[in-house]
């Protein structure tokens, strides 16, 4: 009698496991992160603690910037509303832990794509939304006009927990210059200390220098040296292990860049539905079934373009118009002499 009961229970257990397994594989097609995001009704996005042009909150708590726009694009794609984003300001030190521990789902915080970060710590970089490089800021009256004017004993203010610290060492070592690194936890303190005269130079990504210069007590007293000492491709990051979510974030960014390439803007996106060009029609959801691959509807990309705009609009609005970096430099489309080149959406 007991034997039969035992066998029956084990049989039930086996079925239960099998059933759980099959439902699991069916659900796995849809991303877990996507499911959670749709359930919550907002995208959880990690941003900086205030970097004008990239991610910066105004007095009313409205976030703007090109990094912010990546998260808005994701929200427009998966939730249909670009405003449904919960922004979490993170220090350079906290950012990866916040992402890997599941506190946020997208990290869009001027983060440099490097091999060790990509391979080591459970992260996946999905693309580049800003090509940057590390530079130096000095006082205009210092007489330093190039990194070749640096001498032994120079003090350099910077942030901890960034590739900046490593590049700085590589750079000064290769030049054979001894230097004093003064590394702060937060960018605001770096600016304050450099501004007060604690350091002879302030080093970080050039975009960061341009943005922080606007926070100085006298922005015109400072200048960024022409040399760039490193490659800093900045881009959004997601947690490793959710391929669908990774694709959604990657193609949300790519859509913005490709839309600029085809001249689709937030203003003309609806009209483009009747375009003769199939590539344009695919981007605005009038042809093909591109969204289905992610488990999204077909207008996901149209919503990104309509609500957030293309990459050029985002750049103009956040970086060029406030005068941070009016010249797009490498962040121009490949068709216009830059290096922005994304795979085709088809």
């Amino acid at each position: 009698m007991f034997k039969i009961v035992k066998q029956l229970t084990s049989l039930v257990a086996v079925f239960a496991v099998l059933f759980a397994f099959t439902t699991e594989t069916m659900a796995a097609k849809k991303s877990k992160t996507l499911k959670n995001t749709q359930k919550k009704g907002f995208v959880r996005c990690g941003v900086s603690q205030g970097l004008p042009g990239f991610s910066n909150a105004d007095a009313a708590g409205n976030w703007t910037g090109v990094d912010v726009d990546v998260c808005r694009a994701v929200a427009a794609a998966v939730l249909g509303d670009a405003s449904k984003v919960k922004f979490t300001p993170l220090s350079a030190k906290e950012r990866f832990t916040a992402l890997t521990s599941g506190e946020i789902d997208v990290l869009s915080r001027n983060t440099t794509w490097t091999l060790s970060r990509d391979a080591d710590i459970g992260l996946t970089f999905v693309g580049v939304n800003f090509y940057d490089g590390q530079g130096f800021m000095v006082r205009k009256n210092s007489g330093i006009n190039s990194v070749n004017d640096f001498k032994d004993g120079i003090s350099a203010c910077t942030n901890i927990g960034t590739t900046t610290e490593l590049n700085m060492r590589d750079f000064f070592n290769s030049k054979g210059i001894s230097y004093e690194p003064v590394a702060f936890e937060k960018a605001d303190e770096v600016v304050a200390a450099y501004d007060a005269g604690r350091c002879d130079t302030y080093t970080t990504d050039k975009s960061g220098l341009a943005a922080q210069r606007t926070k100085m007590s006298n922005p015109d007293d400072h200048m960024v040296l022409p040399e760039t000492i490193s490659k800093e491709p900045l881009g959004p990051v997601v947690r490793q292990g959710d391929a669908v979510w990774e694709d959604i974030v990657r193609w949300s960014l790519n859509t913005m860049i490709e839309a600029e390439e085809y001249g689709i803007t937030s203003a003309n996106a609806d009209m483009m539905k009747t375009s003769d060009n199939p590539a344009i029609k695919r981007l605005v959801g009038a042809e093909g079934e591109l969204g289905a691959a992610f488990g999204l509807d077909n207008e996901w990309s149209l919503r990104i373009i309509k609500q957030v705009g293309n990459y050029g609009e985002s750049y103009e609005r956040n970086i060029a118009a406030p005068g941070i970096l009016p010249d797009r430099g490498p962040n121009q489309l490949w068709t216009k002499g830059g290096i922005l080149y994304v795979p085709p959406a088809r």
Partner: protein
Amino acid sequence: MKFNIKKIAPQLLTLLFVILVFGFFSYNAQLNMENRGIDFGYGFLSQESSFDVQFSLIEYDGSHSYFRAYLVGLLNTILVSVIGIILATIIGVIVGIARLSSNYLIKNTAAFYVEFFRNIPLLLQIFFWYFAALRALPLPQDTESIMGVFYLTIKGLFIPAFIWENFNIFLYSIIAAVVSIVVIKNYAKRKQENEGKQIPVFLISIGLLLILPLLSFLIGGVSLSFEIPVLKKLAKTSYIYEGGVGIPPELIALTLALSLYTATFIAECVRAGIQGVGKGQKEAAASIGLNPNQILKLVVMPQALRIIIPPTTNQYLNLTKNSSLAAAIAYPDLVLVFAGTALMQTGKAIEIVSITMLTYLSLSLSISVLMNWYNKKIAIKEK
């Protein structure tokens, strides 16, 4: 040694609790990390760190290992804690006694100091000392020297470096002096107990401390010279002092903030301790013919210390832990160097934070053990 279960049990229980909680979280973390494909391990400690640190007590640059970076941070934390504890104790004792002064001005100045500094958050005080001092200090090229050899600038305090020859012989002479002082003190105590005669131990001690090191200079071949900092031009408007020793403003600001803040609490401990000794004790001491100095040294202080030591231990622990606020003003302590930069470069959050926590725990427990030992030594010995 007597094994006091009452004393040990709570500490053991606490430890057990900590281990259990830690175990629970580490198990959870392990699962999550496995799911997310993050490796766990301490192997990174031997890898090249490839970042530099502003200020280090041992030789270090980016070509050394992460473990050495850890040591750099740890030593910097210990440095600021030790200086802070010494300064806080000195200020605390002075202010504590001053609060009991009969002089109206001294008493109220001390009271104002205590109430002002202990009621402002420490982080704000650190920011104040750092940024206010930075703004107030002159650039290196505009600095007037202090006594011709010290330069206080926005880039730090530059002092002459000591260049020793035969430093070990000098060290031996000091050790010899200390050993002979201990011997003489014991001899004097015995002599007083047996014969009632007093020997001027204090004067002899000072004499020994002066004469023996002096002899090492005269006949031991010890010599000391100074390297005075010299202004060096880096660019048209940027200068730095070279030679000598540079003390970074971050260390100065942090030490200042920590000791001024903690001293207020120690001052209150000292005041409580002295007030806790009964008036009758002093009167009794006076009645058997002790002079005021002896009353303080032999009657009041031994009793006051019993009240002062335990709460002061807390303040020492607080100061040590508060030193981790250093990260805010770029002083390269354990938190900034190891739990900051090293954590970021390796991504080994769990490993590094666990090491850092254990390190602070060990530091605090060491201070605790030391102070408990001292407390036991001065406690009433019932016969």
